[in-house]
């Protein structure tokens, strides 16, 4: 970890600015009038029950869905006005997306090293030795033993697959990472290991992260700020421990009081 670059976590410019974002499915609301700023080095948690619009919102932000209204500004660039090629280049280089199910974010027929190396090649790396070395370095960072580099992800446990997906996503040095329930479906002990890994990476690389989850314990430990969604709308947002310890909205009060020991 010593070679990682430490990034100043404070900056006056938001990396991502979202304003009035709305997505409808016919007459039904996916998400409505969502707005927030995300600064470099900040982790924003989005919580809410299924159907609250959190996944729709994440998809709109990551460019998988086109919102009907609103604006997304990334590093002073208007994301919705971008040409498709430019947006794709962004999602390959400066953005990353960690899926809930690692199978959606990995190529299951390709070796672990190949999964990581492939991303480097997609951004122009050509030197085989260098690619393999970097892949190896990243597998080490996510605690996958060097002798597993030629194994396929299908031979890995769920927790290892998720760590591999993270390595594949972070190897190109993204600045903004979208995560959809990254610890969902994992054993509690594996979850803890992953949380520790994510926290270290956020801190050491100065990553900005938007993490969607229904797990309040996960956001308590990982997110600086929290947004609570219900029925497609943001009902409350603020400092994570403030929202959890002193919830203001009726829905957040129910959400927090329904959980065993957050």
């Amino acid at each position, binding site marked *: 970890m010593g070679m990682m670059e430490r990034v100043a*976590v404070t900056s006056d410019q938001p990396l991502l600015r979202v304003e009035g974002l709305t997505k409808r499915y016919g007459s039904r609301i996916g998400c409505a009038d969502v707005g927030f700023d995300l600064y470099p080095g900040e982790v924003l948690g989005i919580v809410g029950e299924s159907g609250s619009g959190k996944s729709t919102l994440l998809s709109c932000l990551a460019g998988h869905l086109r919102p009907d209204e609103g604006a997304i500004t990334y590093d002073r660039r208007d994301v919705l006005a971008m040409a498709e090629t430019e947006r794709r280049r962004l999602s390959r280089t400066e953005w990353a997306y960690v899926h809930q199910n690692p199978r959606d974010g990995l190529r299951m027929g390709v070796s672990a090293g190949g999964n990581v190396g492939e991303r480097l090649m997609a951004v122009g790396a050509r030197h085989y030795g260098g690619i393999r070395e970097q892949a190896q370095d990243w597998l080490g960072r996510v605690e996958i033993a060097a002798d597993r580099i030629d194994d396929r992800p299908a031979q890995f446990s769920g927790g290892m697959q998720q760590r591999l997906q993270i390595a594949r996503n972070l190897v190109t040095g993204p600045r903004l990472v979208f995560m959809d329930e990254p610890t969902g479906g994992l054993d509690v002990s594996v979850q803890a290991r992953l949380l520790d890994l994510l926290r270290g990476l956020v801190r050491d690389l100065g990553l900005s992260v938007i993490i969607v989850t229904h797990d309040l314990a996960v956001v308590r430990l990982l997110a600086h700020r929290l947004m609570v969604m219900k029925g497609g709308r943001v009902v409350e947002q603020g400092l994570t421990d403030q929202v959890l310890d002193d919830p203001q909205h009726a829905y957040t009060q129910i959400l927090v009081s329904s959980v065993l020991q957050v």
Partner: protein
Amino acid sequence: MILIEDLSKSFTLHNQGAAVIPVMEGASLSVAPGECVGLTGQSGAGKSTLMRMVWGNYLAAGGRIMVGGIDVATASPREIIALRRDRLGYVSQFLRVVPRVPTLEVVAEPLLALGTPPETAKARAAELLRQLNIPERLWGLSPTTFSGGEQQRVNIARGFAHPYPALLLDEPTASLDATNREVVLRLIEEAKARGAAILGIFHDEAARARVCDRLVDVTGFTPKVAA
């Protein structure tokens, strides 16, 4: 360094008929650099509520909380995150950490977050853990498996790793033996000597008498019941 003026707080319980419960009004106090102020009052009088408002995890209904150049009562989450990183420390009664993270790293974390080189941060963490008599063989283990007293000492080590100019201490000596209690009291005295402004809750009366320069009874901040 910590200045509280006319602070008020109420809870709205939406799921109990939107009952509004005023719990504090007209709270005012100040803590100068190098001073330790102890909050007193019966259990439920609002000592912890006041501490949480200064930390920023309870919202204020009105008033001001000036710490480290910002008003926590009106500051943005981002300003409070920055405040907690370098100007305001908090030793709570509960250790809340990611399971599995080794104790040494838990203690070093506030320094790592400030960009301190890992070796320096870990050396400082080791020094504090040694002072607080946490055996070295435990440093590589997660504190989640430790006894209450050990967890509390880990929490204290973490809270004192960085020399915050303002500190909140919630019962820092509660479950400690005489030796470790003495270590903690000395850490508090050292923090005062370097100019830290400390606001604390101490049920341990002898500890309170030794480190506190003044006491503030929060009972005076309880809202008057309307006749």
